[in-house]
């Protein structure tokens, strides 16, 4: 527990603040007992959350790390052979793993930037008061709450050879028959579905931009772009950091849309890390190898998140502290 937290809830610390307790004297037993009792209170509040995290997140991660070191047999009675780091070595030597990682990175880049830019633009537009504003907010947020399964199937039909996209563009492209056009179609779904979410976070953050500062800037002759860049952007920096980090995590965890739109095809060329992991685990029963891919993905996302936290903190003088 941090010293600040302890002194905040500790009456004896309060007395010390006033200088009532002589230096070097021991507090009475009753006071110490009360202090001890109070000091466990925050832990009790934290316990349910930590317990849930331990059971639902930490344990599966540790179990995956454990499995990744074995030729894991799914049936409890069978003996799993210990392989050490062999599954990891195999992953790094596996061309298809790198292809899947490349596709995952493509998806992350292709979806995160548009979601931030368009989400912020829509949030700025909807921030202004207008009678249709609540309706438009709901409209933009609707894709976020619709089922991934439903919209993935919908996009598969949109991007089909005889689908609406080809009809509107007047093209005859087989979008889902090629690696990059397939990834583009999957990314289009990711962007369409995610804009509403980032818009909502930015809208909330925009409420906190001090109107007085914007007015003062306007009085000083700043144009709309300057006001946005100098006043609004710094004020929503924390929200921007949050959205970026969450989108990177989400982008690297893409699965349902790929699984349903292309199934990783043609010939596995639109596989992302999670579809490849799923195929290895449930298609080939290579649970140890699948777990190793999952652990690598977890480590990658963790590293990227830490780097981003550091970048945003440096830029803003310690927002993430």
């Amino acid at each position, binding site marked *: 527990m941090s010293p600040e937290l302890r002194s905040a809830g500790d009456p004896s610390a309060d007395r010390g603040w006033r200088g009532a307790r002589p230096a070097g004297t021991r507090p009475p037993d009753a006071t110490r007992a009360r202090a001890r009792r109070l000091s466990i209170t925050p832990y009790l509040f934290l316990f349910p959350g930590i317990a849930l995290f331990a059971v639902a997140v930490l344990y599966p991660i540790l179990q995956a790390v454990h499995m990744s070191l074995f030729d894991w*047999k*799914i*049936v*409890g*009675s*069978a003996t799993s052979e210990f392989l050490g780091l062999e599954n990891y070595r195999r992953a790094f030597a596996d061309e298809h793993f790198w292809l899947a990682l490349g596709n995952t990175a493509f998806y992350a880049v292709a979806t995160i930037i548009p979601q931030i830019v368009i989400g912020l633009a829509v949030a700025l537009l909807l921030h202004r008061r207008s009678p249709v504003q609540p309706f438009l907010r709901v409209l933009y947020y609707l894709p976020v709450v619709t089922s991934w399964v439903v919209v993935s199937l919908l996009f*598969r039909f949109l*991007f*089909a*050879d*005889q*689908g609406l996209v080809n009809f509107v563009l007047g093209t005859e492209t*087989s*979008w*889902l*028959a090629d690696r990059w056009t397939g990834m583009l179609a999957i990314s289009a779904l990711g962007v369409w579905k995610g804009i509403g979410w980032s818009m909502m976070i930015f809208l909330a953050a925009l409420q906190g931009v001090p109107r007085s500062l914007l007015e003062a800037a306007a009085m000083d002759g700043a144009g709309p772009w300057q006001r946005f860049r100098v006043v609004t952007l710094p004020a929503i920096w924390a929200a921007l950091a949050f959205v970026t980090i969450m989108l990177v995590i989400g982008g690297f965890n893409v699965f349902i849309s790929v699984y349903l*739109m*292309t*199934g990783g*095809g*043609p*010939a*596995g060329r639109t596989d992302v890390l999670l579809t490849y992991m799923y*195929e290895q685990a*449930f*298609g*080939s*029963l290579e649970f140890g190898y699948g777990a190793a891919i999952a652990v690598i993905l977890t480590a990658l996302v963790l590293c990227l998140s830490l780097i981003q936290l550091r970048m945003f903190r440096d830029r803003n003088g310690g927002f993430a502290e």
Partner: protein
Amino acid sequence: MTRITRAAAAAAVGSVLAIAIGGCSAAGGVPQGTEDDPITITFWGSYGNGGNSAQQEVLDKTLIPSFEESHPGVEVKYVDVPYDDLLQKLTTSAAGDELPDLVRADLGWVPRFADLGVLVPLSDVMDDFDELADATYPGVLATNLFDGKYYGLPLDTNTRVQITEPGALATAGVDTPPATFEEFVALGEALEGTGVTLFADGGLGAWNIMPWIWSGGGDIADEDLTASTGVLDSDENIATIQMLVDLFDSGQVSSGIIGNEGAVSTSEGLPNGDYATILDGPWMTGIWADQFPGFEPVYSPVPAGPGGSISVVGGEDIVLTASSQHQEAALEFIRFTQSEEFQLALVPTGQLTVVEALGPKQVELVPGLEVFTAQLETAKNRLAITQGAEVDTILNEELTPAFEGTVSVREALSAAAARIDELLAG
């Protein structure tokens, strides 16, 4: 002791006794359960898959009630699981020791689950196994063999034949579906510029490509399953696959064959007149009857190449899980599935019988199945190894670039053969 705890104690003792008695009766071969206190055996399958409710209805409304009537004290609970989810559900259930008593397993899955140790070898536990097994088609029975023991019995079988859209034949100015590779290619030429695609399929896995390879006079591995190199990359196979690649290049084969999920599906494209021919199974009749009532498909054997007209065996086996608590009753149900009553009841719904002697009755019952029954006589099994899914992945991954023109057919087949060699060696 309070009344509640006494009642709980009595219930606990009763449960222990019931389990003990149940265990004794199972060991002694005495029928389990009574009419008042029946036991339930659970059976998982995917009869209702693909929008074909006819099969599940026959099972639920006719067959299971009939079995329950002749076996008082036994109830059968059938759980329908979509085919695409069944393998995952079985895998996770095997891990959690939550498998049902009986499973209608795709014939490619039996070696895989037998290898996991979750199935009971029927050839060890059924006195009458040989008698039942001998009555079935040898090719289908062989799919149950793993490590010298049979882990299941054939439940139903099927094969792929050529299905043609009559309008496409009229457009091309021919009367009959192509009977040979040459006629197949000629039909493609006749259809050029008409907007009708000669052929469509949903992938390049063994189920899709093996009828072409066998009919072309080739194979995927040697008879002893020791090597694929020298067999899969043979001149016969190069010629066969080159024929398909050339047709693909000229737009006569749909891009669905290389896994384009955006291509019109075979089940829609054929009745709509987008495709002239597909290879598919007898269940399509039921699906089209519901969705395209006016469509009258023409069934004919797979076009014959230098090797003849040879298709691929499909179907399902019935297996008993090692975790079953009611093995005697479950074995009784397995025996029931081999009966004439069970086998013929499902024939009108597109399930071909696995009992050889019932073949003529099947054709009498549904004359439309004649082509399938005849095709089945020469149809072959896919590789009988536990890694069937990997074989499909390899074929798809290596052959797709040949269709896209980035590698030659010879290179593609050699690469696939080398990877299959590794599986066979393992």
